[in-house]
């Protein structure tokens, strides 16, 4: 303990000693360094405050709350409850079904989404000039309908009587909203909603990756006799793998936080689907229906850990955030560096 403190003091004392005896240049450098650190933290101050208020403190506070005991009728006082709330959440009869719902949705939605993003981005890239640009713009338009607007559009599309795709619903034997929005149809309806809203931005992202491929690479493949299909499959696709992986992981993380769509589908289904379809809805129910804040906090921590894990993979392994964070360099990055 004492040794440790002494070491610490020695470390902090060292710079002032060198300054006393050092050359002008060294003195100047250490002064600059201190000034730079100070300046950096002044510039970072507003962001740091917001980071604390909107991320760090709520996470810490949720963690503290999750370790409390929920007040009950028998024992209205709350106190330290250990992992009791986590056990409550995991033991809740709805907990696993919400995750099964999400995994079912992902199994259907993610492959379609990734296939759609890659196919449309490749089609756009194979169409140079104004036509490709116009198509990219059109594919982007649904993405501009954020959140509730996309939902109301789908309220119109799943109207079993007046929708332009009413024939589809009537083919399924549905004539009311309640009959369209059934538990079995939920993954498909959500897939359609998420695909329609999400695909545009991702096409732009993957298209950005495609535009980064140098002309020489494509030229060389063409001289070797590759046709458009071979060019896309053997040359372009391997080169944009980091962007596709990034899209897949981001959408995966997005799936775990799904709230608006299942929440509002429940509202218009006259109760034909459950109120706790997604894990976030279960958290909402714990907080606002049961007023069991420790359980709501515990569920938030569980979701946070899952999405944090996916986030860590994206940030450190995708290779899209530069050398500073990446643990390995991707082929695309090496190529970028060569051309730079």
């Amino acid at each position, binding site marked *: 303990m004492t040794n440790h403190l002494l070491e610490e003091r020695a470390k902090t004392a060292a710079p002032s000693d060198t300054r006393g005896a050092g050359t002008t240049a060294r003195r100047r450098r250490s002064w600059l360094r201190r000034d730079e650190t100070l300046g*950096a933290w002044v*510039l970072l101050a507003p962001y740091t405050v917001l980071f604390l208020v909107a991320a760090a403190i709520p996470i810490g506070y949720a963690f503290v709350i999750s370790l409390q005991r929920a007040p009950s009728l028998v024992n209205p006082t709350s106190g330290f409850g250990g992992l009791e709330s986590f056990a409550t959440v995991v033991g809740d009869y709805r907990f696993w079904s919400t995750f099964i719902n999400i995994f079912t949705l992902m199994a259907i939605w993610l492959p379609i989404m990734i296939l759609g993003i890659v196919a449309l981005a490749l089609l756009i890239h194979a169409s140079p000039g104004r036509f490709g640009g116009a198509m990219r713009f059109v594919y982007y338009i649904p993405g501009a309908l954020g959140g509730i607007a996309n939902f109301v559009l789908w*309220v119109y599309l799943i109207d079993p009587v007046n929708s332009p795709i009413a024939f589809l619903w009537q083919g399924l034997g549905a004539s009311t909203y309640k009959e369209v929005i059934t538990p079995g149809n939920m993954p498909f309806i959500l897939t359609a909603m998420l695909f329609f809203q999400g695909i545009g931005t991702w096409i732009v992202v993957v298209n950005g990756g495609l535009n980064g491929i140098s002309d020489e690479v494509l030229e060389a493949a063409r001289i070797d006799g590759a046709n458009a299909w071979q060019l896309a499959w053997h040359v372009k696709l391997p080169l944009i793998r980091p962007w596709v992986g990034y899209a897949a992981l981001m959408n995966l993380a997005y799936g775990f936080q799904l709230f608006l769509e299942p929440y509002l589908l429940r509202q218009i289904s006259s109760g034909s689907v459950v109120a706790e379809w997604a894990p976030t809805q279960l958290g909402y129910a714990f907080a606002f229906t049961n007023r069991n804040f420790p359980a709501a906090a515990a569920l938030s921590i569980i979701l946070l850990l899952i999405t944090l894990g996916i986030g860590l993979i994206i940030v450190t392994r995708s290779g899209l955030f530069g050398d500073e964070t990446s643990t390995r360099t991707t082929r695309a990055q090496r190529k970028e560096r060569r051309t730079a």
Partner: protein
Amino acid sequence: MTRVSATRVSDVPRVVGSHRWNAGRIARIVVMVVIAAAFLLPIIGFIALAFGSQENIESGASGFLNLGGMSWENIVYSWNQITGFGPGNGGLFQQWMINSAIVSVGGAALALVAAIPAGYAFARLRFRFRKAFLIATLLAMVMPNTVLVIPIFLEVNAINAVGQLWPVAVIMGFYPFGVYLSYIHFMTTMPHELVEAARIDGLSELRTFFEIALPISKQAIALVAFFSFVANWTNFFLPLALLTSSQQNKTISIGIQELIGASPLFNATVAAGLDVKLYLPQLALATVISMVPLLAMFIGAQRFLVRGQTIGAVKG
């Protein structure tokens, strides 16, 4: 189209796409146009719906995608229904639009004040914990913000501020994607040498930021303002958790949810007690109107967005 590609073939050797009208090219163009139609027709039908009337739609008199049933009278009728919603003479819809404007503009202003200097500090200054803080920022950026809503609710609840607008604006001001955009901006547009030169001239770190970095960051400012405004305006779960308790303080996204809940299509008992009738044309009109500020922002920011797609190739 044909003419453009034809002239190009003779001038520049092209490496992507083919120039002749072969079967592959025709198939590609047909597929792309069909998909474009599948993306656009629902939106066209939805906008036409906002100009329609419930009677025409029910009787099937509006034709394909309701395009035949559009009229200005319908809009006026629907507008009166929407604005008539609420206690007394209504007016909740306008109040919700104003509330959305307050939190979205307030949130975007805070996001700018925080993100531009932070992005500069991350990009061009050296300090302890720089890398750790940067990684925390990237993590916060790729994590879906819904995950933090319940913890944020617990925090705001602890200070008894649930139902007020200001906590929503403050939370919206935390916009890590904006920091990332600003970081990339300073990395690409402001070389290290410029910072060094300013230091040699005796400028302090803060003056270097305000006098050299800030004047060249118009692009980053426009992008951060645009993206954060759009994210704030369309945010649903945060206002739902923080503002549901106060009818007057709702934002438009959760306000539209309220309108859906008051429609005779979904809740006959609630709707029966109301003076206004909210069917699909009214809901569609409310939605279209709620999108107007986004459209205005998009048009205003358009010339910055074109280049922004290249800086922010990684989406937030």
